[in-house]
């Protein structure tokens, strides 16, 4: 027996603040993004369905928590990203894309105006590259800080609001993509109503030395169970959210990846971000390919790298795929020729020499439950 898919390549493996706690909770740990991370506790499907019905506690401390500060920080970031950060109100956050000088996507990330600075949450697998890129490309008078002393947990699911507001009442007052500081039992938290599962919920930055106490307080509540990264991946796939390194790479651009919403209105007219000329041209004239959702019949899944066909013509590639626990059939994201990207288009995916019928469907596959 052997796995087709292997984990990320890692040089050295770090230990995150909640490592011992996960093990004590019965997590199976795997190496991911340079750390030991909990992949599952009782099983991906049970954890996935629990999160859709209740509240799941995810440890996402492998992600990079950065802040950018100094006069002109917003304008400096606007050179590297297509968001309108100058107009971002205090406590507001935006999904954005870190672009290389040709407009290729280096990472996708969240940018929050905390009032004191702009806070960035970047993917764990590319945080060191991001930090290097930001240090090199931000002006010298802008300060970039990597908050390695902070853990980051996500509480996701319809009952997340009940659970978290019991500890921190302000959580109930936040709406989707709003954030603010809070105090819990003397521990300073920074809470945003966001996440990457399609559910209502929160991401909470907590000092590393209080992370275990905080996680313990959450799972002590009936609504909350610890959930591994396996279910996080199946949830984000159902939510139609791309995963960097899979659905997005440096060969991707915001337009063909279906992320034009991340290009703010003002930036569409003014440009001024890396790759703007190419990206605005794609925006005006349409890209050659598009990221689409595929629904498959039966139970055999289409996986990353599988070739997509329209008749005998190869028209694209699956970028991530798996079995949807909510829908009980396989789903996938694929990058396909624009001419074959309309909802309802019948395509085929080749997996292990078999042609699997697939239909282009609207994403998200499962409707999101954000509280706006």
């Amino acid at each position, binding site marked *: *027996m*052997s*796995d*087709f*898919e292997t984990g990320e390549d890692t040089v050295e493996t770090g230990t995150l603040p909640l490592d011992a706690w996960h093990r004590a909770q019965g997590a199976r740990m795997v190496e991911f993004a340079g750390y030991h991370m909990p992949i*599952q506790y009782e*099983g*991906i*499907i*049970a954890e*996935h369905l629990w999160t859709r019905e209740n509240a799941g506690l995810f440890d996402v401390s492998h992600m990079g928590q950065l802040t950018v500060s100094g006069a002109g920080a917003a304008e400096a970031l606007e050179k590297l990203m297509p968001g309108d950060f100058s107009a971002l109100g205090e406590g507001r956050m935006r999904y954005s894309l870190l672009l290389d000088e040709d407009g290729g996507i280096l990472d996708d990330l969240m940018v929050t105006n905390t009032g004191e600075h702009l806070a960035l949450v970047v993917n764990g697998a590319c945080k060191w590259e991001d930090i290097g890129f930001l240090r090199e490309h931000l002006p010298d008078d802008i300060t970039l800080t990597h908050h390695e002393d902070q853990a980051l947990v996500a509480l996701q699911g319809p009952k997340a609001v009940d659970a978290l507001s019991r500890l921190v009442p302000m959580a109930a007052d936040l709406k989707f993509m709003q954030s603010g500081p809070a105090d819990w039992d003397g521990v300073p938290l920074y809470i945003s109503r966001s996440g990457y599962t399609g559910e209502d919920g929160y991401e909470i930055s907590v000092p590393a030395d209080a992370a275990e106490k905080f996680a313990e307080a959450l799972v002590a509540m009936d609504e909350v169970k610890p959930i591994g990264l*396996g279910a996080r*991946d*199946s949830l984000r796939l159902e939510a139609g959210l791309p995963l960097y390194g899979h659905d997005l790479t440096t060969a991707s651009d915001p337009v063909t990846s279906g992320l034009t919403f991340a290009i703010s209105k003002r930036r569409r007219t003014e440009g001024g971000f890396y790759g703007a000329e190419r990206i605005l041209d794609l925006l005006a004239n349409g890209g050659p390919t598009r990221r689409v959702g595929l629904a498959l019949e*039966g*139970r*055999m*899944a289409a*996986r990353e790298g599988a070739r997509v066909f329209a008749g005998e013509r190869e028209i694209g590639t699956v970028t991530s795929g*798996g*079995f949807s*626990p909510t829908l009980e059939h*396989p789903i996938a994201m694929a990058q396909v020729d624009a001419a074959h990207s309309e909802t309802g288009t019948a395509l085929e995916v080749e997996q*292990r020499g078999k042609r699997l019928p697939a239909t282009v469907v609207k994403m998200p596959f499962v409707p999101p439950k954000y509280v706006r």
Partner: protein
Amino acid sequence: MTRYFTDEHEWIDVDGDVGTVGITDYAQSQLGDITFVELPGAGDQLKKGDAPCVVESVKAASDVYAPISGEVTEANAALEDEPELVNSAPESDGWLFKVKMSDASELDGMMDEAKYKDFVSSL
């Protein structure tokens, strides 16, 4: 009936010249929730080490190797509707396929249950 184990975590029950093949409880626990099993067809000719069967979990697909050479006589049809049998009963109802063995000497060197237990506890 004698049961042998491979270091790739397959088991094979030998009854006369027919072997019944499945994956071990350890293997299913490592894979997690199984959502699909791609089975060989009756009549398929297998060589020891071939990968005639694939077990899919939510996240990944894993090859199951043929522990023995021979002809597939039957695949476990129950897995088409209930692939989760491989999780719940990996070493009984969740068997994968049966092989009419062409070379029983290939069984030599496989582990018995006690040796396999030691092997797993050493991992």
